[in-house]
């Protein structure tokens, strides 16, 4: 009886608390779900910001001009000497065409503003056209030329017209001219090829990422040719040959610690060793690649060791059993089986290296470089550094270009990671 009562009491107590406990359970669960949703929100918010800021950069505003290839300003008809043709005053042709369109503009200062609607790069377009076809001289043609970045921003709706005139980059008289041009269908947005074919420039409308992409390519090339063989060799040694002693323990601890050293410290190492001690030039992909190779080495070693570990010992025993030497066992049997895992790790390491900025700032890869690099010894920027440089520029047009460059960088990174996932899925073996 007493026991029964006791029992009931316990059950009652449990029942009483149950509601509260279930409520707590639900709250805890929601908290967890909330954390994940918050994380997902951050991802989507980040991507939405970047894409909404950047997608317009893939288009560029062009203006149609009626250009008269005036023989007086270029060269007499029939002249083909490239020396003469390249030195002619093509800017003058554009100015003449603008004057003709807006004859009412006579004031010197206003004229200057008017010419500013067209990018300074437009004269190079005309020069290239004439130099590839000298027969143009003396003829009239309709030419689409790149508009200035301020015009571009206006057309894309990035300039707030409610602001007072003094706060705007586009003044009221310019607005009037642009409306006139628009009414004559002389303004058009086209795909922005410059962005993919040009190097850096101070003028947003003339700047592109080709130089940065080439620089990134050369840097990664150096990084890969050093980090992959050395990383795989180190992993093979540590996993397959190394005796278990203090020395190999030290190496192991070392690799784990190197993986967590701040990347900027690797930059200082590069500055002190490669540039100051070995006297290699600054800003070149060779040094960048070396620094990034040292940085990605731990990642590759750790991934390669995991891949080697996953090859079952029976493979090794079988090979040794039929008389293969240890080295033959590794090179003929273990390595081919571990290679997909090693490649996956290497691709992930390369993706890391591609997005790395801080160590490259230390070795001078932040210089303003217009030319597209042609080798590992040419000064160059890399894609993330280009993003950093553009993010620092005050022009509104660089904001969208920065975002667009980020989109390109992320596209590269995502495809590299997908490649790694695909490799893992395709070659993954369960023993």
């Amino acid at each position, binding site marked *: 009886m007493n026991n029964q009562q006791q029992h009931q009491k316990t059950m009652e107590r449990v029942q009483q608390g149950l509601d509260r406990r279930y409520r707590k359970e639900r709250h805890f*669960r929601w908290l967890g779900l909330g954390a994940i949703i918050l994380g997902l929100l951050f*991802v989507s918010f980040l991507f939405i910001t970047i894409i909404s800021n950047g997608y317009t950069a893939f288009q560029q505003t062009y203006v149609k001009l009626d250009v008269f290839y005036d023989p007086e300003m270029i060269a007499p008809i029939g002249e083909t000497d490239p020396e003469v043709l390249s030195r002619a005053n093509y800017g003058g042709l554009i100015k003449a065409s603008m004057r003709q369109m807006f004859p009412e503009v006579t004031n010197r200062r206003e004229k200057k503003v008017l010419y500013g609607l067209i990018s300074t790069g437009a004269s190079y377009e005309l020069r290239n056209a004439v130099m590839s076809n000298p027969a143009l001289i003396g003829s009239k043609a309709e030419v689409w030329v790149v508009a200035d970045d301020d015009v571009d921003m206006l057309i894309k709706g990035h300039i707030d017209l409610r602001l007072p005139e003094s706060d705007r980059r586009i003044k009221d008289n310019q607005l009037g001219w642009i409306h006139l041009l628009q009414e004559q269908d002389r303004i058009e947005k086209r795909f922005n090829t410059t962005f993919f074919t040009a190097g850096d420039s101070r003028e947003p409308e003339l700047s592109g990422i080709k130089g940065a992409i080439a620089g990134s390519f050369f840097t990664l090339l150096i990084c890969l040719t050093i980090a992959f063989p*050395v990383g795989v*060799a180190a992993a093979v040694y540590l996993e397959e040959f190394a005796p278990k002693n203090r020395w190999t323990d030290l190496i192991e601890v070392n690799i784990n*610690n190197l993986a967590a050293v701040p990347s900027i410290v690797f930059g200082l190492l590069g500055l002190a060793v490669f540039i100051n001690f*070995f006297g290699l030039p600054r800003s070149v992909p060779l040094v960048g690649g070396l620094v990034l190779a040292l940085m990605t080495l731990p990642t590759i070693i750790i991934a390669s060791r995991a891949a080697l570990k996953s090859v079952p010992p029976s493979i090794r025993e079988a090979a040794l059993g039929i008389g293969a030497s240890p080295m033959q066992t590794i090179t003929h049997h273990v390595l081919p089986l571990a290679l997909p895992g090693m490649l996956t790790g290497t691709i992930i390491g390369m993706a890391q290296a591609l997005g790395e900025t801080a160590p490259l700032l230390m070795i001078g890869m932040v210089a303003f470089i217009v030319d597209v690099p042609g080798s590992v010894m040419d000064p160059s920027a890399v894609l993330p550094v280009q993003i950093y440089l553009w993010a620092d520029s005050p022009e509104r047009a660089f904001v969208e270009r920065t975002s667009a460059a980020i989109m390109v960088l992320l596209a590269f*990174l995502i495809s590299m990671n997908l490649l790694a996932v695909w490799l893992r899925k395709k070659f993954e073996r369960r023993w």
Partner: protein
Amino acid sequence: MHTSTLIILLLGLMSLAYYFGRKRSLSIVGGKIRDLHSLPSYYGLQTAMWCGIPALILLSLWISFEETVVTGIVVESLPQELQSLPPERLDLVLNDVRNLSKGDIVSSTVDQTMQQAADHYSSLMDISHMALFVVALSVAILAGLWARRTITREQRARNRVEKAINFFLLSSSTLAIFTTIGIVLSVLFESMRFFQQIPVTEFLFGLEWSPQTAIRPDQVGSSGVFGSVPLFAGTMLITLIAMIVAVPIGLMSAIYMAEYAGKRFRTLAKPVLEVLAGIPTVVYGFFAALTVAPFFRDMGTNIGLTVSSESALAAGVVMGIMIIPFVSSLSDDVINAVPQAMRDGAYGLGATRSETIRNVIIPAALPGIVGGVLLAVSRAIGETMIVVMAAGLSANLSANPLEAVTTVTVQIVTLLVGDQEFDSAKTLAAFALALVLFVITLALNMIALHIVRKYREQYE
């Protein structure tokens, strides 16, 4: 570019050597492989190694000493008054000579002697390149021929080749050690020079940081005070904010993923969260500077607070977002390492899931989680791009997250980007900061890895 041609030529020679070495070994035994000590391919490899490796070593030595030797000869031939210049002036002259010989822009006016020196320099360089070509190729050919000649049927080619490969493997694995030594030495060396000018105590305990050193003694606005406390305080403030964001979100999402989420939800949500880990930090920096900082500033103005546009809050929050996947994947690992038997025991006693998690799993996993958080802290301290783009530049000893503070990494970048002279305290200060940064992150990592390892052993 001629070096790469030479390397390609050498690689070509090596494959030729492989072919001839292999053929030679077969012809020695008349095609009966079983009479050879090793497989024919090993004789080929051995020949190729002899052909390539000495020449490649020679090549790298030559390239590293070429410049010094040629410059030395050019200095010898310079007129006496140029030779007797102080070393740094002489360096300038030599730089001009080099640029002149490449056809680049030179700083001083070009006169007769300069032009002569430049011509001398480029002719010497040409001679050196030609000599390298001839010497390297003949070394390769001679060594290859010699190796081919010495092939006998008893020669232990496999053992030799394997020994060479083993040497390569061993030296690769020691590169990690050399990298660490390189980091320590390079940072330590410059820091020592810094501490010769600025006392250690001033650096470690000084409350004011203003690294502008005077070029002229009477210059205004250049105090040159190197007290690093404000920098470390700023770093800690931003790290703290980052942790306040990252630890709860990362931990809770790891718990949900491990204990509640269904398989389909996990396969969908986990990779998306991991995207955060793959985004380059420069992108986060841009995001922080362009979106988050103005957002906080406007929000602050709306509720009547003055928030700096480079507030520690914005940088810290964005850094926290960056670290979420780091915390969550490390916690995920340790939570999954808690044995199922402990969960089953708790469920058997009637505990709800959240009670099991709170009272059993988290206490059991705590050391691992702490280790993970320490690793995350060390990452936040060393993180550079976010703070360079979103945090302030001027040292400000403040605990207010709405103000602008600066961090150690920001100062390293600002001190070292641009032109540097390696004897000014300003440049060397960056190395001293890096030394402290390296020591702190190293200690944190050591502790964290030790805790995680101890914890793993406990349940294995």
